[in-house]
């Protein structure tokens, strides 16, 4: 929120610089996100009196002599249409900085430095300025909107710097207010904090006014939704004279970024800024039956708000109505139908408290946000609601824009909140903080924060300020104390009283890390991708409508369609990453991601879904299927398991280059080459390979490592070149070789050949078979084993020795 220094000074005597104040606010929990010096770009501009002014023949220019008091008298060529002898205007001297404006004389295009120059051949030693050139609009200073010169009063002294006159020697604090301090969403709220920090009193705003009988007829207010509107105060004002607001009010609104409308509307906005209570003013003649009804909107009911947007409402929205129609969207914006007009003569002021989540929901659902809804969403306190109405009526009198009537209604269905008290002990506060804040310091701080404090030894009896609903227990008091006492007093200690605990990863977490370590050591890069994707990603995989992967949990409020489904497979994410890499000219890569997929029991989702850790690997470049298989085997090694591979099919994988992977009979994943059709659609230039493993299932098979005693006798190897039918797989032959002899400990394919020499429909496969003896040498028996192996192969698979 924005708070001008000049306004804050109305409530507290600030005797530190803006920068020092920024630091004080920071220390007590209010970060100043931006501190702006209003006249930051303006320098060297003084009051100048035009003492000579004659038109320059054939141009729109006037040749002037300008008296700038002790700064001198200068010849200035001026193009403004309102320049004439005798006026006083801001005069930018040589070297001054002002805003450069576009041709429209309004749009600021940057900051310029005034130089000695010539206009149409006539020397000009400076520039007479408009409001826009000084960053001043009509609300900030009368006449600031005019596209000619900004005329200054005759009372200004020639040569005096204009910054004080125009109010440019001011600062605006843009302060971040945390969600627990809605009471600080106002100039007064911030001023209270400043007063506490500087140990100064708060000068309260004037709330006095006089009620007059017989000014307005009675108004009836009925709250039919007490849960959404716990407090509603209405007060009627008669004899209203709509007029512009006084300059001081306009200026303050302008500094906070609000446009002045008229005196009545400005009072409501002024109070929103000053006290943090959004208010509304209804034109009484538009309220049918002089009645206000607070109720939930009927389904389909419509309202056009002040900004001329029409909304269709439902029972979730709270509306303020007269006998027949909604006249305001509660807490968000007034209705166009009850707007204050130039001829409005009677006004009903509204100051209310609306349920914060209801205002939030309505503002969100309708996409209609306002300064008012922003404050209601965070919360207002009834203490402020009451005072705000008084302040509004005080301003009516102060501005002389109406007569305060005695027609007043105050609705509080659940009763007015009572002042809250609490007790807490000084020692508890200090034991939470871990330091000894002196008792006097604690009571002093709490008094500065407007707590009523009665200390009895260690015990504090506290009256909580009515605007501090956030205070809930002694830790809140501890926080109040330490933020004022200073966090710099907190010195680090290292759990002197805590028990020893045993930390670190558990076995499963360690296993996961070990797996990643092995994959990184194998030259793979770990990636992390979003947990959500879209229907389009599943379409990319050509998954049929009934595929399990299609049963994805939907995000009800996604950022966009692209990120709307919780993923059920990591493959699309990997494929997208591969595609992105190839498009960026990255010729090859090996990637893996260990992340969760989300499987719902039923859709729409009712219970916690299963979150299944899944391992996805993807490689592209000058690789083939067996490079990917090598990566998969790393996984097997990391978990100390054995994988079996069998030919398989996936809609997005090459039908001849796809394997199903199983572990101890359980299918735990697949691997294969991305189908040329899919690759073509993605314009992949290099072949890509993808594998996905169910890590949760896999880790159940993982086995601890054990040492195998070294064999006492040397191993023996034999190479066998075999000829078999072309459809016999490597795995089939391996299985038979292992099965034929218990001493076989390794079977490794080292050559495959198909061609004329082995005949049509045949191929040759050459294996190295390793025999490891157990308790005795087996050298002499190996020929026998080989014979048995060959017999088996011939019998089972019709495989011959070549």
């Amino acid at each position: 929120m924005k708070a001008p220094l000049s306004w804050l000074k109305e409530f507290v005597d600030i005797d530190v610089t803006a920068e020092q104040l920024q630091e004080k606010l920071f220390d007590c929990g209010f970060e100043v996100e931006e501190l702006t010096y209003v006249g930051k770009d303006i320098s060297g501009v003084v009051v100048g009196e035009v003492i000579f002014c004659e038109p320059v023949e054939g141009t729109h220019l006037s040749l002037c002599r300008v008296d700038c008091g002790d700064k001198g008298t200068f010849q200035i060529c001026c193009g403004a249409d309102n320049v004439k002898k005798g006026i006083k205007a801001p005069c930018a001297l040589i070297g001054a900085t002002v805003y450069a404006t576009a041709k429209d004389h309004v749009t600021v295009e940057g900051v310029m430095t005034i130089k000695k120059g010539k206009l149409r051949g006539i020397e000009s030693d400076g520039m007479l300025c408009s409001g826009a050139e000084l960053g001043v609009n009509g609300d900030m200073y009368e006449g600031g909107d005019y596209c000619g010169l900004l005329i200054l009063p005759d009372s200004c002294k020639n040569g005096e710097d204009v910054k004080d006159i125009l109010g440019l020697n001011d600062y605006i604090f843009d302060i971040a207010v945390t969600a627990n301090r809605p009471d600080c969403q106002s100039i007064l709220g911030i001023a209270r904090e400043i007063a506490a920090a500087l140990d100064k009193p708060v000068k309260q705003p004037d709330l006095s006014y006089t009620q007059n009988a017989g000014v307005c007829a009675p108004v009836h207010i009925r709250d039919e939704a007490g849960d959404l509107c716990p407090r509603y105060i209405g007060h009627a004002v008669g004899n209203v004279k709509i007029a512009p607001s006084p300059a001081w009010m306009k200026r303050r609104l302008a500094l906070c970024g609000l446009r002045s409308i008229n005196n009545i509307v400005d009072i409501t906005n002024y109070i929103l800024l000053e006290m943090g209570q959004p208010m509304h003013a209804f034109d009484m003649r538009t309220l049918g039956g002089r009645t206000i009804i607070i109720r939930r909107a009927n389904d389909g009911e419509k309202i056009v708000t002040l900004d001329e947007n029409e909304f269709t409402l439902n029972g979730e929205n709270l509306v303020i109505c007269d006998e027949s129609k909604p006249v305001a969207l509660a807490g968000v914006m007034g209705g166009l139908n009850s707007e204050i007009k130039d001829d409005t003569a009677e006004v009903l002021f509204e100051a209310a408290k609306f349920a914060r989540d209801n205002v939030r929901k309505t503002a969100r659902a309708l996409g209609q946000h306002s300064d008012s809804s922003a404050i209601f969403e965070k919360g207002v306190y009834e203490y402020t609601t009451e005072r705000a109405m008084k302040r509004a009526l005080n301003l009516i009198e102060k501005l002389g824009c109406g007569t305060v009537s005695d027609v007043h209604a105050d609705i509080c269905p659940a009763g007015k909140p009572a002042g809250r008290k609490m007790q807490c002990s000084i020692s508890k506060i200090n034991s939470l903080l871990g330091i000894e804040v002196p008792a006097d310091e604690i009571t002093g701080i709490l008094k500065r924060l407007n707590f009523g404090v009665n200390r009895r030894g260690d015990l504090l009896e506290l009256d909580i300020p009515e605007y501090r609903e956030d205070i809930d227990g002694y830790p809140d008091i501890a926080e109040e104390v330490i933020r004022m006492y200073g966090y710099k007093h907190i010195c680090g200690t290292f759990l002197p009283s805590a028990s020893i605990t045993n930390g670190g990863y558990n076995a499963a977490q360690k296993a996961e890390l070990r797996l990643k370590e092995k994959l990184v050591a194998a030259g793979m890069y770990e990636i992390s991708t979003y947990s959500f994707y879209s229907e389009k990603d599943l379409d990319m995989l050509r998954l049929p409508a009934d595929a399990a992967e299609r049963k994805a949990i939907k995000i009800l409020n996604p950022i966009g369609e692209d990120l709307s489904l919780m993923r059920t497979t990591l493959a699309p994410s990997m494929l997208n990453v591969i595609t992105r890499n190839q498009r960026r000219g990255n010729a090859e890569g090996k990637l893996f991601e260990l992340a969760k997929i989300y499987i719902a029991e039923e859709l729409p989702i009712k219970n916690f879904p299963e979150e299944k850790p899944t391992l996805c690997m993807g490689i592209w470049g000058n690789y083939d299927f067996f490079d990917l298989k090598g990566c998969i085997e790393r996984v097997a090694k990391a978990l100390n398991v054995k994988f079996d591979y069998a030919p398989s099919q996936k809609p997005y994988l090459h039908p001849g280059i796809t394997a199903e992977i199983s572990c101890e009979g359980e299918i735990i994943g697949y691997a294969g080459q991305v189908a040329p059709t899919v690759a073509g659609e993605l314009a992949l230039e290099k072949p890509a390979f993808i594998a996905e493993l169910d890590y949760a299932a896999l880790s159940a098979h993982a086995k601890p490592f054990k040492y195998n005693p070294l064999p006492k006798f040397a191993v023996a190897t034999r190479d066998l070149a075999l000829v078999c039918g072309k459809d016999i797989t490597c795995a089939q032959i391996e299985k038979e070789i292992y099965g034929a002899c218990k001493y076989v400990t390794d079977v490794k394919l080292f050559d495959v050949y198909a061609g004329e020499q082995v005949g049509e429909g045949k191929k040759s496969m050459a294996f190295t078979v390793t025999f490891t003896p157990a308790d005795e040498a087996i050298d002499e028996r190996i020929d026998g084993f080989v014979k048995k192996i060959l017999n088996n192969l011939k019998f089972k698979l019709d495989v011959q020795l070549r």
Partner: protein
Amino acid sequence: MLTIKEKIAEIKKKIDEALANVKFTKSLYEIKMKFMGKGGEVSDLSKSMRDVAPEDRPEVGKQINELRCWADGKFGELDEKLKAEELERKYAEEKIDVTMPVRESAEGAYHPNTLIRNELVSVFSGMGFEVFEGPEIENDYYNFTALNTPKDHPARDMQDTFYLSNDLLLRTQTSAGQIRVMENKKPPIKILSPGKVYRSDDDATHSPMFSQMEGLVVDRGITLCDLKGMLDEFAKKIFGEDVKTRLRPSYFPFTEPSVEVDVSCFECGGKGCRLCKGTGWIEVLGAGMVNRRVLQGCGIDPDEYTGFAFGMGIERIAMLKYGINNMKLLFEGDVRFLKQFKD
């Protein structure tokens, strides 16, 4: 018939001639063998000793010996010289251009998030923290209500939430895991809870998915000073020995008091630079003393136990530590990016 003396002179002359143009040690050895080897001229001369009269033998023997010594010296000298020359030629031939590119062996890398996460876990596990990973899909109770953020609480707006149903949502903070731990474990509790979290935010500095690391300590007599002490240690280990921390008041519904924690800028040492936007401090995490209501809700007596919690964005730490300028890079999987994180 030549005398022995003449023969010796002749051999010396022959050797001198033979060695005049020798370039390689290999030819030198051949020549050496021709003269000194079995059946070589010098050996033959020794054999001819038997034809010498006995009284002359000592003198002749002496002369032959001298010849041998002379020849050995000659051969040895030249051998050394040739060896040196050959070595020089070999070195010249084998010289390489050391600036040519490497022959790369396959090397992978962890994702930066994993690197930071491991580093954080190693810092805190040394202090006795266990690692607990809760579910990413949470319900309203664990993500909000149990964390003292009831339905109408404006703090719900601090984090835009993705909803999956009325009740189920993508967790917006790893703090949700705190509750699950405290429900099942009684103090002393020291846990770290790393994991993915989700918020409906998508721009240069926000990503709809990111990672957090949450820390929680609950025990008897835990104070705000203990939080500060632990975070001082964390800052030193992660950002450097000279780095200091600063607490400043803030607000989170589940802690009271709540603080933002800044570390002194490790780039400029606190003098003010681009990284710290001239302030000398960098915001790294939020923390606070666990709210009494949160403890109560988990069946822990807040009058007996106190605790603190802290939470930080892992991506943020990674970006700060490695100087990554755009959060999106972390999720794109571009190998040119990933290759750089070989820690």
